[in-house]
């Protein structure tokens, strides 16, 4: 549980501190992973399989979120590149 908390905090720090869209998406991945870890730890603590089921759902959500997020990122990148090359290379979100 402590590991899950630390990982979640790190993901949150990354989400807040970085201004690069790719890093923000990666931080969201870390946070979802930490939430899933908390579910699995709780499930193994009480000897239930519900935690692992919840982790499968979190995995599905993360996959969907990454697909849409990366499509949005590509869209933003192409739009900024047509406007300003510097904004595109920095990818300021």
């Amino acid at each position, binding site marked *: 549980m402590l590991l899950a908390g630390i990982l979640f905090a790190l993901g949150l720090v990354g989400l807040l501190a970085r201004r*690069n869209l790719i890093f923000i998406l990666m931080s969201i991945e870390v946070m979802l992973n930490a939430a899933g870890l908390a579910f699995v730890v709780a499930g193994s603590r009480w000897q239930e399989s519900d935690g692992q089921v919840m982790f499968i759902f979190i995995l599905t959500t993360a*996959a969907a979120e990454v697909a849409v997020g990366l499509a949005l990122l590509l869209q933003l990148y192409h739009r900024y590149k047509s406007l300003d090359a510097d904004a595109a290379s920095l990818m300021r979100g």
Partner: protein
Amino acid sequence: MDTTFYVAAVIAILATVMVVTRLNAVHALLYLIVSLLSVAIVFYTLGAPFIAALEVIVYAGAIMILFVFVVMMLNLGPHTTKPEGIWLKPRMLVGPCILSAILIAEVACLLSQAGNARQGAVFVSPKEVGLALFGPYLIGVELASMLLLGALVGAYHLGRRKRERMETRDVVDSDAARNATGGDIVRSGTGGPSRAA
């Protein structure tokens, strides 16, 4: 079991710190893969081998491949050959390699003692997970399938709109070319680089 858990946890935290603090997206991706693999080992030591396999396959496999593809797509262009030389310095690969080597040693250690009884961790078999997943959580499975379908359609739509706009830009460009050349579009088209390619 406890030592492997703590070593994997420390590796996960280290790799995640490196993910957040890296400046280069490719380095951060390497450390993120290491972090996900170590979390998978944590799952294994917690008595959830099915979830550990899912973590490796889906997270470290599929989702990271998506990230790698997008990073490579964003870096298209001739001006990136010089940064690639900087990225491919072997010094940058040392950190993830060391962490992954520790993880591989852990996996070998776990596999060597796999025949023994698992102590300290409650083992939840994949069968129980499947029974719970398709028993009381059946509506959740359906919702997840709808979510994935929505994500698929949404990602396709977001990726498609850009191509449509490029096509309209091509049409506008060819209109401008036709106006500039007084209708002699064929000769103006053969002069420039072919945009249809």
